[in-house]
């Protein structure tokens, strides 16, 4: 690599990653939205697709990432949970038990912070996440219930 390349490389890398910058949650570009979906289905809003991209069990905690993508040609609005009662509509069912989102000692949900109404342009996506108490190891699949789509059934858990 010549000296000019060495100088420009960090800018090129930053520019490439700029659009795809995803930390835990947030708006993602179409490129970043290519993370493989474990399960997907239409949401209750025409043109918006809900995709589970992570269902990871670790140290007794189940982390779920739910990406919503706008596959339509127009901007769409969708409401993510804001306030305890709305967060409680997002839960996991495994066996005959229901698991609600974990809350810290101050009662804060361990999930994407209160989001509320979110606007998604054509091709744009948003990844929402939350942590739940993990079902026992004997449970290999779960149902995921939300207020934005029909239930996601038989989602495989990765350990």
């Amino acid at each position: 690599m010549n000296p000019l390349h060495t100088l420009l490389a960090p800018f090129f890398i930053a520019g490439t990653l700029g659009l795809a910058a995803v930390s835990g949650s947030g708006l993602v570009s179409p490129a970043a939205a290519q993370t493989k979906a474990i399960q997907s289905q239409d949401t209750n809003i025409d043109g918006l697709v809900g995709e589970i991209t992570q269902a990871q069990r670790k140290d007794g905690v189940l982390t779920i990432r739910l990406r919503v993508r706008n596959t339509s040609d127009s901007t769409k609005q969708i409401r993510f949970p804001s306030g305890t009662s709305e967060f409680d509509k997002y839960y996991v069912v495994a066996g005959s038990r229901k698991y609600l989102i974990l809350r810290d000692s101050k009662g804060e949900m361990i999930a994407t912070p209160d989001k509320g109404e979110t606007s998604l342009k054509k091709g744009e996506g948003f990844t929402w996440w939350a942590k739940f108490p993990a079902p026992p190891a004997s449970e290999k699949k779960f149902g995921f219930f939300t207020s934005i789509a029909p239930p996601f059934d038989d989602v495989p858990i990765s350990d």
Partner: protein
Amino acid sequence: MLVGVAMGGPALAAYTDPDAPETEAAARAALPNAIVRDIAATVRDIPGLSRDVADRGRGVESRVQDLDKAIKDLDAKQTDIEIRIQLPADVLFDFDKANIRPDAHAALRNVAVILRAYSKSPTLIEGHTDAKGKDAYNQKLSEQRAASVKAWLVKEAGIEPARMTTRGWGKQRPIAPNTKPGGKDDPAGRQKNRRVEIVIQKR
């Protein structure tokens, strides 16, 4: 990553990255208090319906049973005009703190049952301390504790905030002597004085 959010009270944590060590640590720490319910025994509100409407759907008989049980469990005192609930501060809060302890949730859920049954009733939440410590400190602590109870009822039980008023009395309204006749400390009396009282006006 953790972000502090000022809410007019203590700063609350907001979690922005599920993979951050702080987030994972918080999740593991939250496991002992995780909410896991047996589906067969759970009755949930229907999304989109108010709690009152959902309660009506469960039937009047069931509501009356819930109310009677809550009043009994809390040892609430009823008159024609009010229901008075006394909650020991030692159950609600840790020493010198104003954050609701997880052990207090069951009692507060019972309070919520009564508040829902009297859904139009103005409610006064009063904090009281014992006589130990400085007056100003006790006054502030009693105000903070009353406010914490209200905040819990709003956030966790969905009670309308506008109907609840809070007030702190510090050590001004004891219900038991703080000292024995000889002037010695009376720990049992002081324990009774450390409390939150909830007064629901029937109407």
